[in-house]
């Protein structure tokens, strides 16, 4: 089975080619959607096979590399098109193909009747291929193909409604910000490659080889530089401070895209990358700290913005940014498996929520369309009371919300709690731990608040939509609700894969599973770890209880403000108008970036073109030409144009020259 790993990215590629080239001719939506879904589902089957086989092997044999063909070989540099299958990539391919299949299925219903249906499925398949390359690549360069490939697909899919200017802008912004990250990724890659090559004559970018040689790496120093650069790459892809602003804008894309790319898979690539290179990252305490701090900061920062948004998808987008912050926090505190765990549970509940919101939007859109109204189908202020008309959507959404809020025993509780616990108890950051934990806890509180705000505004209360169209609201078709139900189940029970030891009801499957991947990192980390004094069961229980309490507090606030005392939010806004405006406008980060980077760049470009290129360089060139022209303007009066003048001059010349030689 391992040998067939190349089939996993191949199927979506085939789907992409078929739909891309012939989709326009096929026209039949069922066929197009069927092909797209089938292809990714076949990848899922192959992934399952690989997982099964891997489970059957002892942990130390769970690594397999498959070289497909040599790609770039030049001088010392070697990069093959090759795949690496290990427990980490097995988890990732399961998530990608599993959630991917469900979202493909969902899209058949959601995208029904859209112009360019085939285009959508082609892109979606292409995305899955890229994402699978990303997680399967056995060297940084194959990973980078996937890395950029998902960026490309994200660009294409965000810009799917290309006739909307905002969609085009958002697509471009996403790609460019990702490129900023890629810049970091490349520099990190170069640094690592160069350091190994020039110091130890190991010219490699292969993960296994780097892992084998990682004991040569020093602590800090060059590793800090390289890992920080990689982390810049991760912030770009995973929408962390300072490169997070593209993700909310990316909601311009169709909702399945938001679910697949901007919640479940692509944005987690940064987390995956750090996990893949945990043995390098851990060697730099400074980088670990930066990762943790950025993660925590992003978690709380995005959460605050999430509290004031009215667009249902934007709330979810900020929630995604915030949850990704949690994952980075986990990575930064050395709890790599917890980060991957949260990645997985997040993929379940966030995909479910996005799809649920898609279902709502779908329904709203149709209703508004039938009622010939042009209200915003995504604005929560137009919704309300939908739980009655859309029960399945409501239940799955509610379950997922409980999961993200961290209510026991839903999946999010386990993963988030593990992260918070590690943030508190990890041996790497000393006194910073309290701050990290505190920030994370507050962010969790905010999360619970804004998520329940969303739920209350959307599903509870009275329907605020125009009464004319109320009767058009209905539950979505099966292709939409089946994926919702599956994801809802996963969001509920997914957490049992990683139950903490203190609970003891189930073994911690995921941690054991990922152990072979991360044990080297733990070993390296032990070199500078402080003696862990916090590890007590009582404390862990206590914190667990605390985090549930926090979540409940958040929920209660939301309940008070948006169900019981509905006038309160308006009052609050009236009391603190500046604060609300700042939060509502996302703390003006976009404007700040425009001011610092975008506009100066454009102005500088204009100056270079009109000022330097045209005036200075061309000025010199044309100036020389003009000087020559000026002189020739004087000299040309000597050229009368009459033949006899020329003849005269010629004879004069002959006479003078001859005379000179004769009479000298």
């Amino acid at each position, binding site marked *: 089975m391992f040998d067939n790993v190349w089939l996993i990215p191949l199927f979506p590629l085939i789907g992409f080619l078929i739909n891309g080239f012939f989709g326009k001719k096929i026209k039949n939506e069922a066929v197009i959607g069927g092909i797209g879904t089938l292809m990714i589902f076949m990848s899922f089957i192959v992934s399952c096979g690989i997982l099964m086989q891997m489970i059957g092997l002892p942990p130390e044999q769970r690594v397999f590399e498959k070289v497909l063909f040599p790609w770039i070989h030049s001088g010392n540099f070697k990069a093959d098109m090759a795949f690496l299958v290990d427990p980490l990539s097995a988890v990732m391919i399961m998530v990608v193909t599993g959630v991917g299949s469900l979202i493909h299925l969902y899209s058949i219903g959601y995208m029904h009747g859209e112009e360019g249906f085939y285009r959508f499925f082609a892109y979606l398949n292409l995305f899955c291929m890229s994402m699978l390359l990303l997680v399967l690549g056995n060297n940084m360069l194959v990973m980078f193909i996937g890395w950029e490939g998902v960026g490309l697909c994200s660009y294409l899919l965000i810009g799917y409604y290309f006739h909307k200017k905002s969609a085009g802008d958002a697509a471009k912004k996403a790609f460019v910000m990702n490129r900023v990250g890629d810049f970091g990724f490349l520099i990190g890659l170069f640094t690592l490659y160069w350091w190994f090559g020039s110091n130890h004559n190991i010219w490699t970018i292969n993960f296994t080889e780097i892992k084998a040689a990682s004991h040569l790496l020093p602590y800090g120093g060059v590793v800090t530089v390289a890992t920080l650069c990689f982390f810049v790459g991760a912030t770009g892809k995973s929408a962390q401070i300072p490169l997070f602003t593209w993700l909310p804008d990316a909601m311009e894309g169709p909702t399945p895209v938001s679910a697949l790319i901007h919640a479940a898979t692509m944005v987690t690539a940064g987390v995956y990358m750090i996990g893949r290179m945990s043995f390098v990252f851990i060697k730099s305490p400074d980088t670990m700290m930066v990762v943790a701090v950025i993660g925590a900061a992003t978690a709380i920062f995005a959460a605050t913005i999430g509290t004031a948004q009215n667009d249902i998808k934007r709330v979810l987008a900020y929630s995604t940014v915030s949850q990704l912050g949690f994952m980075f926090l986990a990575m930064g505190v050395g709890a790599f498996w917890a980060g991957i765990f949260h990645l997985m549970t997040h993929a379940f509940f966030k995909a479910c929520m996005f799809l649920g919101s898609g279902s709502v939007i779908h329904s709203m859109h149709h209703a508004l369309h039938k009622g010939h109204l042009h209200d915003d189908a995504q604005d929560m202020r137009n919704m309300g009371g939908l739980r009655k008309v859309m029960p399945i959507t409501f239940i799955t959404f509610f379950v997922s919300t409980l999961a993200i809020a961290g209510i026991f025993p839903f999946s999010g509780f386990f993963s988030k709690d593990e992260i918070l616990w590690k943030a508190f108890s990890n041996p790497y950051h000393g006194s910073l731990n309290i701050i990290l934990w505190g920030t994370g806890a507050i962010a969790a509180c905010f999360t619970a608040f804004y998520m329940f705000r969303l739920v209350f505004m959307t599903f509870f209360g009275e329907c605020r939509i125009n009464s004319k169209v109320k009767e058009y609201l209905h539950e979505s078709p099966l292709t939409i609700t089946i994926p919702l139900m599956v994801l809802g189940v996963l969001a509920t029970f997914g957490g049992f894969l990683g139950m903490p030891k203190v609970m003891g009801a189930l073994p911690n499957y995921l941690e054991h599973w990922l152990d072979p991947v991360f044990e080297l990192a733990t070993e390296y980390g032990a070199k500078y770890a402080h003696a862990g004094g916090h590890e007590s069961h009582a404390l862990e229980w206590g914190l667990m209880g605390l985090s549930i309490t926090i979540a409940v507090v958040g929920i209660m606030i939301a309940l008070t403000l948006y169900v019981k005392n509905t006038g309160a939010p308006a009052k609050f806004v009236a009391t603190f108008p500046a604060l609300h405006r700042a939060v509502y406008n996302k703390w003006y980060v976009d404007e700040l970036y425009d001011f610092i980077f975008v506009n100066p760049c454009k102005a500088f470009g204009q100056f270079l073109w009109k000022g330097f290129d045209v005036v200075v360089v061309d000025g010199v060139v044309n100036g020389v030409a003009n000087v020559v022209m000026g002189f020739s303007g004087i000299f040309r*009066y000597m*050229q*009368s*144009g*009459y033949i*006899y003048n020329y*003849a005269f001059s010629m*004879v004069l010349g002959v006479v003078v020259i001859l005379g000179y030689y004769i009479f000298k």
Partner: protein
Amino acid sequence: MENLNGYLIVSAILFAIGTIGVLTRKNAIVIFMCIELMLNAVNLTFISLSRHLGHLDGQIFVIFIMTVAAAEAAVGLALMIAFYNNKESIDVEDVNLMKW
């Protein structure tokens, strides 16, 4: 050959007359004829020196010069006709297309 200088002086005089003609006249055909005169002056020099030095090369050269002169006459006169067709004149003062 004792009278070489005489020939050469005559040749020089003819050449000078030709030069003066080229420089002073403005009828293109006359200028053309003056050029022929200059060529003949040169021919005379060639032949007299050829005789003086006992080589025939000079005379061969004269034949070539004559050929060139013939070709020149053909092309030059054709040019004049073409020019006359355009400008109704063969005055060199009217040949001023190259004037700035």
